[in-house]
């Protein structure tokens, strides 16, 4: 093993570990193939789905309503990010910062009110 003192030396260590990991996984899989008996038949080739016969395709469509929730979450999530830099300077700016953030959150609240009024927040 090379000296771990240099910056790139440490990467070599990681590389060796990664290599060992890959070889271990691939090796065991190959080993199983070598030693296991191979007797195929149709039942064994069907997809296993909790013991029930699989029906239809593997693609399942999720309800489009999830999309609205996901989007609302994403948008509000990234807006919340603005709270962090604000929190850092809050003490220095005092009331001014407070008022600004109230306005910011007020506008977000209007968006939420809009979503609520359009009945996208409830699951019918």
């Amino acid at each position: 093993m090379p000296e771990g003192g240099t910056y790139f030396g440490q990467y070599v260590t990681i590389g060796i570990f990664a290599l060992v990991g890959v070889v271990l996984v691939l090796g065991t899989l190959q080993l199983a193939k070598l030693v296991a008996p191979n007797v195929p038949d149709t039942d064994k080739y069907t997809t296993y789905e909790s013991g029930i016969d699989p029906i239809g395709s593997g693609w399942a469509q999720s309800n489009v309503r999830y999309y609205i929730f996901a989007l609302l979450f994403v948008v509000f999530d990234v807006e919340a990010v603005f709270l962090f830099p604000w929190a850092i300077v809050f003490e220095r700016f005092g009331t001014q910062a407070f008022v600004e953030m109230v306005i910011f959150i007020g506008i977000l609240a209007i968006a939420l009110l809009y979503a609520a009024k359009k009945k996208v927040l409830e699951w019918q």
Partner: protein
Amino acid sequence: MNSPIDLHAITPELVLAGTACLVLIADLFLPEDGKWLAVPLSAAGLIGTLAAIVSLLGEHRITLDGSFEVNSFSLLFKGLFAIIGLFVLAISLDHFRDGKYYQGEYYFLMLCSLLGGFVIASSRDLISVFIAIELISIPAFVMTGLRKRDSRSNEAALKFFLFGVLSSAVMLYGMSLIYGFTGGLTNLGEISTALAGKADEPIVILSVFFIVVGFAFKISAVPFHFWAPDTYEGAPSPVAAFLSTSSKIGGFVGLLVLMYAAFPSVAEAWRPAFAALAILTMTVGNLIALRQRNIIRLLAYSGIAQSGYVLVTFALIDPNNLDVTRQAFQSALIYLAIYGVMDLGAFAAAVAFARKGGSYFIDDYSGLFQRNPALALMLAGFLISLAGAPPMAGMWAKLFVFLAALEAQSYILAIVMGINAVVAAWYYLAVVKRMFFEQPEAQEPVEVTNVLYAAMAVATVALLAFLPGINFLTEMVERSTPF
């Protein structure tokens, strides 16, 4: 750093943002047949904004740590955006009230997009330029797709959206490189100082190139124009009117701010690109416009060509010759202001004609003069103005750009512009000729609402009354200096 915000300087934006929120909330609580009340509410807000702009006239203020500047230039464009907003409200009222779709949301989105235009006119920082340009675009994507069940509207929205987002990404990449190259600057004035004498640095040329390409999409300059005609055709027509004026002028204002405030010191690097862009945009726009059969597409391509004339002014900037630069700058301002009014007028006439008794096909304009003389006369006025023929203001707009090109000794640009003006006159006057000298196929009169008549009449008077030197517009432009 703890500088108080100059609240007076941002009153127009505050009033507009407040109005937008109010419109959205009001829409939630209005009954279905009262939704159109969003229009008077928005109009009142826009008039309030105009009052706030007037209260700032003649002022020069810088606030928000130098990223927001109020001066004649920004006030001029804020006023123009507010007036465009009022016009579009007038065009939209009946179209959306009868169409019964998403009225409150539409007016809210329109006000938001206008707010983007307001902010970009005052932005003096890469970040606020970016935010403003996105504020112009994102509501516009939604407005384009407002007719949810119409495949054309969907398709228009998707094309507009993909091109719009792609252009922002390209523009942002350029901005990030500029930020890195200048050592962490985002203020446009400081960037200009830092870039002095760096015109032959490949990285500077590359990043300015990226930014220009991003904006070329927004203003639909050839070869980045593919989305524009499809989007205008598929969108509800008042939205097309809005896109071809407010959205496009917003893009130009962003370009003016960046080119005159951030990159004048490296003008040698990007001037030739603008010359090529201008020549291509004028020529291709006009040539394709020649064979259009739908009035909205005709206006879309003619709008592309009109962008070309404004792009000419960017090719004239010369940091060593302040007189020429100022003349180029001022001719761009005059062109944009006049273009906004005449293009909106033409769109208003097209919407009015298609509403009752007509269609968007140019063939159906035959003999319009016999069916509705007032509409035919005003539409003819707008088309003549777009063609740049006297006595309308469009002539002065073209003349100023032309004179600036001569002053800068860019004779090739001037000649190309002259040829294009002749080509353009051909297809504009073809519509005029059809309206006046051909027999109508349908006989029923074309009905136009009073609101539309009023809007078109105001636009006509404004275009007729423009005389350089003795009006408010030229006074404002005179006072606007290139930063």
